[in-house]
């Protein structure tokens, strides 16, 4: 075998090593997962990933009792608001929650707010520290009135029109 072939083989082998390294890096790049943080475009409008269709904007009296937003009134996320649609809202520390809390006193999947026949209900998902509606502990799905504080760990939430 000629000297040239040997040199080419030698360099080709080094290239192969780097092809492995680079393809591994490529896989890692396309395999990034976990959580994606996106800025919310404007106050009140839902951000990416939240399946919250715009609530119907009727003007009849029935609709005036329907809450439109979920507001955080205490805790590290104080001031955050979420538009309410038809979809249930999962609250907790896990990244897949609709409202992700940075609250050491809340569980990963702490509580759930869901719409049942026009009424929003809160349900505790077996959290460690419990969910409180007003001053009473939530044991079973309980209707939430507008303005009643819902306490999850150190975070307090409220439904608003």
């Amino acid at each position, binding site marked *: 075998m000629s000297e040239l072939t040997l040199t080419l083989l030698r360099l080709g082998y080094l290239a*192969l*090593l780097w092809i492995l390294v680079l393809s591994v890096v490529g896989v890692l790049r396309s395999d990034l997962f976990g959580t994606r943080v996106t800025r919310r475009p404007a106050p009140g409008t839902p951000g990416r990933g939240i399946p919250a269709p715009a609530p119907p904007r009727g003007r009849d009296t029935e609709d005036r009792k329907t809450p439109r937003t979920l507001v955080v009134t205490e805790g590290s996320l104080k001031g955050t608001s979420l538009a309410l649609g038809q979809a249930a809202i999962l609250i907790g520390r896990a990244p897949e929650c609709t409202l992700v809390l940075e609250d050491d006193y809340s569980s990963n999947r702490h509580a759930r707010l869901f719409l049942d026949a026009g009424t929003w209900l809160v349900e505790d998902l077996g959290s460690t520290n419990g969910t409180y509606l007003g001053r009473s502990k939530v044991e079973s799905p309980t209707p939430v009135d507008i303005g009643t504080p819902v306490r999850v760990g150190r975070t307090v939430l409220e439904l608003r029109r």
Partner: protein
Amino acid sequence: MAVVTAVETRPRRNVELVLLIVSLGIAIGAYVLVGIAAEGRVQANWMWVGGGLAVLVLGVHAVLRVVAPYADPVILPITTAINGLGLVVIHRLDLAEETSLATRQLLWTAIGVGAAVAVLVLVRDHRILARYTWTAAVLGFALLLLPLLPFIGRNIRGARIWIGLGPLSFQPGEIAKILLALFFAGYLVTARDSLALVGRRFLGLQLPRARDLGPILVAWALSLGVLVFERDLGTSLLFFGLFVAVLYVATERTSWIVIGMSLFVAGAVLAWRIFSHVQRRVDIWLHPFEPGTFENAFQVVQGLYGMASGGLLGTGLGEGRPDIIPFAESDFIFTAIGEELGLTGIFALLLLYLILVERGLRTAIGARDGFGKLLAAGLSFTIALQCFVVAGGVTRVIPLTGLVMPFLAYGGSSLLSNWIVVAILLRISDAARRPAPAEVTG
């Protein structure tokens, strides 16, 4: 305000298969090149050797598809590439020295892969391992001390870290490494609060209470014990480093690193003052070319000359003379690769190790339970520390100690234990990457 959404995870087993084929290409390509350099033609048995390795790792791949579909897709290909390259370099040194270590190494690869498959199949959930925290502690320390027993303990090249039964010899410390990582993770996940939260602040460091210093002092004393009675610098360093690393990950307190490093420096200076074998290592490190130490430093110096003659692109596999270095197949396989694949090849190799460790630490971040986090972080740290100590030792960054390059260097016990480490990492990464059970709707 920002919105946090989870990005969908995919199993990515097909990606792993493609990368595995490239990895096998690296192993088989190296074998072919060595054959060309040694005999001027492709060795006839390349298909058998390459096929053997392929059957082993594709077997692991198939098992992963069934028992851990979400496991990290790059850990196995990287392991395969490093293991395969190590096998070929050992084979290449065999050709030069007329030994047959590569066959034994291939056999140990098969045993290691078998153990990895067994771990993956038997341990379906890594949290089960947390039940055996104290069992692991007892077994780990017993294995560590086993070489000190009469009759079965063997003293090879000054270090008493082997046990021998007839013709077989084994380093129980390698298995003890895994058991102790298990123990540290299980112990610290329960003890971390008192180690992290209590104590006074001083100069920006949260200092622990005196009685919380107990565990780190015990770990320090034990690793010094290994150094004194088994005369093995590497194992002693590895255990203490592992403990401090897991302690730091568990508590997030920089003060433990400071305390650990101070204890390490104190121990190192003490050992250097007292023990002649430590003094000799330090002399070799600082003055390898001086007449007084040149005899002892022959190995290190030859390694440096080897890497120098390799240069940027290397002499080519099978074209250099790495066989001049004593124990080139174990302690100095790093310089053998540096000589024949050059800086370009060594950097590729180091990057592969770096990515392997990164994937392990990423697994630790993704793990949902504290025990899994600490175990994955501890095991990845042992790989990182071994690489640093070996590569640093042969390139004279730090004194040479007797650790082995994971997967690369000749040594059955190390190969076996590292395949088990990879299996545990794959198991934890499967749990870490698997999407959480679907949300209940309605």
